[in-house]
């Protein structure tokens, strides 16, 4: 087999492309720009850390089935861990989102990073919601019977039946976590590829404003 033939292989091409876009020193950096020194950066990492805990506690609940936590002290405690890791996850994610907004984190070709973050947030909302309606307790009875009207009004209730606990549980533990984790991975890879957005350059902004005014006049 010639070297040209090897270079033409899909696998070789994909490896070269991936290594070019995301070399190891970008994926696992050992330095970072000095401006990355603010408490706001903690919340992105905290979001990822709490997501790992959400998945871990969810997996433990899945091991014993959907009714385990109702009648077992250990099960109920694991459920409490699951609940609070979700609460911390959303708190960290919302602060992260607002922080990124006020940093204008889409600048410098980072629009896709922003957009994947927004979609991840939506997927997380749906994952949490399906968790609430598949708890099989009073909360899930009330929340599902109220939420059905909103979803039915869009036509979606015909296919996404919040009163069907089995369907909601499957969405909660398989489909939506898969989507959320894949989106999170894409989001993090984009962050590593593009790097952390640099601070606004006030001088450049002022120059730009002057240029615009001059052009208008």
């Amino acid at each position, binding site marked *: 087999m010639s070297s040209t033939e090897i270079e033409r292989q899909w696998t070789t091409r994909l490896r070269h492309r991936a290594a070019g876009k995301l070399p190891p020193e970008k994926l696992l950096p050992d330095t970072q720009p000095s*401006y990355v020194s603010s408490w706001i950066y903690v919340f992105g990492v905290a979001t990822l850390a709490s997501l790992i*805990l959400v998945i871990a506690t969810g997996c433990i609940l899945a091991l014993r089935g959907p009714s385990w936590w109702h009648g077992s002290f250990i099960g109920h405690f694991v459920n409490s861990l699951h609940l*609070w890791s979700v609460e911390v996850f959303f708190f960290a994610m919302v602060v992260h989102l607002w922080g990124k907004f006020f940093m204008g984190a889409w600048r410098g070709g980072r629009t896709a990073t922003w957009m994947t973050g927004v979609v991840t947030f939506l997927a997380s909302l749906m994952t949490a919601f399906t968790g609430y309606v598949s708890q099989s307790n009073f909360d899930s009875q009330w929340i599902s019977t109220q939420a059905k009207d909103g979803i039915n009004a869009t036509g979606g209730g015909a296919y996404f039946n919040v009163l069907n606990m089995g369907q909601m549980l499957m969405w909660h533990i398989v489909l939506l976590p898969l989507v959320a984790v894949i989106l999170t991975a894409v989001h993090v890879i984009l962050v590593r590829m593009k790097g952390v957005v640099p601070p606004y350059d006030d001088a450049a902004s002022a120059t730009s404003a002057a240029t615009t005014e001059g052009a208008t006049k």
Partner: protein
Amino acid sequence: MSTTRFRPDVDAPEYKGGYSPYDIIKEGTIAIVVVGILVVLLAVVFGSPDEPAITIKKWSNAAPIDFATTALSELNGTSLSASYGAPYNHNGPGQQLGPLALARWVGVRIPINSANDFVINPLRSQPNNPVLKASLTAWEKARASTRSTWVANYTKVAGRMTFTHGNVVVPATNAGPVPVLINDLTHMARTGALDTALLSGNGFYTTDYTKPLLFIADGSYLGSLAQKQHMLGDQWGMMNETGSYPGQPWLWLYTFWYQVPPMNSSHSGDLEVFAIMIVLTLVLFFLPLIPGLRAIPRKVKLYRVIWREHYRDT
């Protein structure tokens, strides 16, 4: 010049400053440990809510009149389920936003016939009751107009319904088999048999609680319990959960729209709220591309607090 002009809300300046050591693996590990400790502390101190689900048995024993009245509303077609429209039946217009009638366009995909599914079919499963059997036969053989007359006559005096010595008593005349049907369904519910009958429609195994949940939600007992738990729509409904737990505060904006006119009293309030949230979500998604909105952070200048060390050093 315009092609190379720096756009402060779109472009990022080239960073020419210094770099600091950064151990991403160590940082991630510390984050997991710290968040893990925080979560364990919260779980130990606060636990989690688990208010038991209510059953039809519990409902009919706690509030037999409410149960019997709800059963009647399934027969006379006035319950929420009976008059819902799509996706359950064709008995209601459904919600509409201008020309958009999305649910109606999708159609009936989860068919619910309230009278048959919640009253008649469950009663058929009751054995060894000749009076009930005769009443069901009379119901089935009667014309639709006759049934309507019976149900209407019963409904007229249903306000005087009492629950005496374990029986639903209504001073109805010319109501045909309706008094027996309502009374026997109440008996059935109070033994727990109706919970099973509504679930077993699909065979032995089931995870679909659509029918019992629709029936329970048609009564006022579930809502009265939810009100005590501050979970009604005008109490910021879905984002709350039982007890004093935080619930889903991330749904605050969605829930907010239900608190303000016209959505809080509109027949199509759910669809209107969804429409607002879809627009706002699209704005959030496309924010980097929207002039004016994407300039907000630069004009607010909160970034100078976030990167205060950077600006101080430069």
